[in-house]
């Protein structure tokens, strides 16, 4: 079942480009990542999905309900963590929690208390006394009140320390295991790679690719950096893609069997060798380099 689906969803407002012809399908029970540079349209898409802004053209559905006309009933099942948390500055955290409870039907005070404990939230502070990371933790907590079936997070790890990031990931994985769906935008490619089932890459308002991260469909190679007396034609023959060549220093993507590779270079005089797995970041950077080449 598609939890989120959009059909050529576009938003063009004022000078900002917004988003253009976005088509995404987020399946039930998956963690779907959404990555792109600043200003690519990530927040615009999220705000359109949540009806903060209206689409210029196209349409979108969440839980098979129209994002513009049925937003209120959609939100009964959705939790949202904004990128920048700007809650009522003079209000106490405990009052924010109570305010959220007032909007939600299906919540357990015991679970909320347990989240307050896990996320180490001081409920007796006012919002304006909290650091960026602590505000984010309050936003995460409030998004989870009411047993949401879909969680939308806009750059959720901004400001969180590594321990809290891990706790957040644990929460998201638990949600996924319960069959709930997570839609998150992020700059942190490693977290997206480790967490998400699929990721869409947005550039200049358009989705330029959607990658299946948890399947074997995506064939990440290895990034090899090699220095030594090696003929260039040997590198050209074995590499999937040459990234750089500079005075007997080679950097290339290798996609074959690593054992064969090691054996094939054994007869050369090697000064330096580093091998690492190609990751999402390499691919992500590639998309932007492609843009610059154009």
């Amino acid at each position, binding site marked *: 079942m598609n939890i989120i689906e959009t059909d050529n969803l576009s938003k063009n407002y004022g000078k900002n480009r917004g988003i253009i012809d976005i088509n995404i399908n987020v399946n039930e029970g998956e963690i779907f990542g959404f990555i792109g540079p600043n200003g690519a349209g990530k927040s615009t898409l999220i705000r359109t999905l949540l009806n*903060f802004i209206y689409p210029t053209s196209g349409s979108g559905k969440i839980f098979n309900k129209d994002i513009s006309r049925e937003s209120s009933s959609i939100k009964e099942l959705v939790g*949202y963590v904004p990128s920048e948390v700007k809650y009522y500055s003079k209000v106490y955290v405990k009052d924010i929690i109570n305010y959220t409870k007032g909007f939600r039907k299906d919540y357990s005070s015991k679970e909320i208390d347990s989240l307050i404990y896990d996320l180490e939230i001081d409920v007796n502070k006012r919002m304006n006394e909290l650091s960026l990371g602590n505000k984010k933790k309050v936003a995460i907590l409030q*998004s989870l009140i009411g047993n949401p079936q879909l969680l939308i997070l806009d750059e959720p790890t901004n400001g969180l320390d590594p321990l809290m990031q891990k706790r957040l990931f644990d929460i998201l994985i638990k949600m996924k295991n319960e069959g709930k769906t997570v839609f998150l935008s992020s700059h942190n490619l490693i977290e997206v790679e480790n967490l998400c089932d699929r990721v869409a890459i947005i550039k200049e308002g358009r989705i330029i690719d959607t990658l299946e991260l948890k399947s074997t469909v995506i064939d990440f190679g290895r990034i090899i950096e090699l220095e030594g007396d090696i003929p260039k034609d040997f590198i050209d023959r074995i590499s999937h893609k040459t990234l750089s060549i500079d005075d007997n220093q080679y950097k290339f993507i290798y996609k074959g069997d690593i054992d064969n590779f090691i054996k094939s270079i054994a007869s050369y005089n090697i000064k330096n060798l580093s091998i690492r797995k190609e990751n999402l970041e390499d691919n992500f950077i590639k998309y932007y380099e492609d843009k610059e080449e154009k």
Partner: protein
Amino acid sequence: MNIFRFEIRRLMKSCIVWSLVCGMIIVLFMSFYPSMKDSGIQELVETKLSAFPEGMMEAFGIDKMVDFTDIIQYMAYVIQYVGMAMAIYASILGVTSLLEEEAEGTIEFLYAQPVNRNQIVICKIFSRVLLLFIYLFIIGAIAIFVSIIFKPEGIELFAMVKDIVNIFIGMSFVGFIFLSIGLLLSTILSPTINSTAISIGVFFITYIIGVVGKLRDGLEPLKYLSPFDYALPMDLAKEGWNSKYVVLGFIIIILSISGTFILYNKKDMKI
């Protein structure tokens, strides 16, 4: 209902502060009343005032010569100035109602909850109406209390209270007009604008337009653009309600509130 309660709790403190400050102004001015009555000051004031050009008197809302020895007229004169503060407060309540949520980014919390835009507008309106009522109730109670203290002999208590209540009904009417204009503005204005400055501006611009309307022959229709003049305490104390202003006031309230619902439902939130 949840939004309503939250708003009341959040804004009650400033409401009480506004009420007490305005209430203190009434107490302060009314404490001069006995000396107004006793020392023949009326004669003095009348002499001085009659030296002013008529237009100027009209601009300051004292064209209908005030009898400072009459407690109701004196009270109406005092409340005229407190009424300006009330109009600004009502305007602030209106302008900040929806705009503040966008300006401070809190709309990202509120509208992520299962509420629709109409519910937000309704709760904002009702919470503001209640706050304005609380404000008017407090200063009204203070006004009645001090006038009972300073009540001259021979004035019937019930009639005096009735007149003061009538003045406060007029104040409420003007307050709700400014509140509804503020509400409409809060759907139109950019969140980057200083909403308090706009609120004060709304009052003074309409007030000055009204003054110009009163001063210049041929520009008389301009006075209809000044809601503050729709129920001037002095007019109510001396002449009662003007039906033209009442109808106009209700039209402004209805149009502004309808416009608020329509525009807020269509707008893109600026976060």
